[in-house]
């Protein structure tokens, strides 16, 4: 297992993007300054999350979401502590207190909140354990990561980092062919949608910025978010002249001689 490092060098947003694109299954363990977070994924979707020693039992989650009153929560803690979350969930559904959708929605929100808290962590060792899965007695969810990634990107403020990510605004953007990515299921802000409407290999990022009245920082932030979510990729602008150079690549202009030259190189390298 080699997916490990420090948040100083590789942000949570970038990790989520990698996990999403690689459809990873396992658990990301992040050791923060004062606590450890464990975020589990199945095939690139968020399944479960836990932070520090926080009580993340179903009863606690529902209580935090005001779906259970304090007396109800205390009763469950006392009388139902020996049963699993799955069994408790079924009990609550069968008793008519909550629907399955309620339970899943609240769990999703809780897990999402944990991940969003991780966005503020700028230092800490992480590693991805392919063999560590959510506890058997807990309920897992299945949540797409794109929106979380975009949210994480929104929190990125450092100008230098953005400049490193997108060094040139003369390049263009195109939508990725990645299976599963679908703009309709992604929640974008008005500004992000405005940029998306101009994405076309014929439009440079600079031109999009002018059209959307954004400055360098604003357009970089938005493009970075879209890149991290795997929705777009950088490409050469169509119709832009290739960089000209007076220096010849080949010592001959004859195409057949050029091919012969490359074949000679290949044979020579093979013989080394």
């Amino acid at each position: 297992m080699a997916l490990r490092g420090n948040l100083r060098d590789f942000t949570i947003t970038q990790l989520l993007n990698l996990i999403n694109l690689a459809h990873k299954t396992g658990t990301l363990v992040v050791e923060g300054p004062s606590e450890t977070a464990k975020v589990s994924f199945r095939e690139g979707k968020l399944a479960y999350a836990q932070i520090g020693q926080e009580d993340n039992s179903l009863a606690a989650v529902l209580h935090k979401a005001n779906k259970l009153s304090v007396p109800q929560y205390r009763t469950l803690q006392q009388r139902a502590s020996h049963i699993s979350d799955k069994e408790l969930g079924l009990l609550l559904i069968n008793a008519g207190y909550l629907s399955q959708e309620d339970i899943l929605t609240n769990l999703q929100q809780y897990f999402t909140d944990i991940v969003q808290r991780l966005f503020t962590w700028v230092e800490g060792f992480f590693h991805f354990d392919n063999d560590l899965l959510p506890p058997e007695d807990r309920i897992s969810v299945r949540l797409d990561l794109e929106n979380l990634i975009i949210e994480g990107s929104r929190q990125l403020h450092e100008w230098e980092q953005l400049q490193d990510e997108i060094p040139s605004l003369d390049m263009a953007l195109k939508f990725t062919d990645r299976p599963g990515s679908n703009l309709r299921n992604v929640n974008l802000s008005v500004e992000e949608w405005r940029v998306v409407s101009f994405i076309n290999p014929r439009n440079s990022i600079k031109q999009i910025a002018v059209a959307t009245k954004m400055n360098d920082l604003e357009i970089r932030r938005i493009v970075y978010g879209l890149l991290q979510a795997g929705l777009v990729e950088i490409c050469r602008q169509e119709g832009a002249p290739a960089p000209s150079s007076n220096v010849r690549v080949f010592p001959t202009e004859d195409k057949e001689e050029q091919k012969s030259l490359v074949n000679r190189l290949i044979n020579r390298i093979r013989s080394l």
Partner: protein
Amino acid sequence: MQTVKMVVTGPFNAGKTEFIRSVSEIDVVSTERKITKASEKAVKEATTVAMDFGRITVDDDLVLYLFGTPGQKRFDFMWEILSEGMLGFIVMVDSTRPETFREARSILETFRAYAPTPYVVAANKQDIKDAWELEDMRHALRLDSKVKFLPCVATDRDSVKSVLLELLYSILSEMENGGK
């Protein structure tokens, strides 16, 4: 005597010098200067501040030169000069240092903007225990699936040959497709 050129680029300490050294028939020409930045000193003892230069004689009539770009960002003014007239380029990435991935991406984008020549990306130090898996690196580097991303051990001649050959196959393929 005809000459052609390839450029080996990548972040500081990615393995560019070793890559060229593995196949060059001459000692790699590089000017070593004492590291002055403490952070770089911690990574390695000596580094190049001028370009690395290696040579492979193909036959009586043809020589291939390998140019390595300086790794530190403060020498990036050299990159455009070195990229002029190149057949193609190789971007070396240190598989054990994810903190360099962002810089590697930036270097790749810069070179792509300089010249629309074929390139490959080499994940170096794949023999080391902490090396990232290639698939994970591909996603982290946001490399398109069409980009050749190759495992590499720069101190292993056969590994370096494989990378060079893949670049040459890409060059040939582009020529045969009319540069499309």
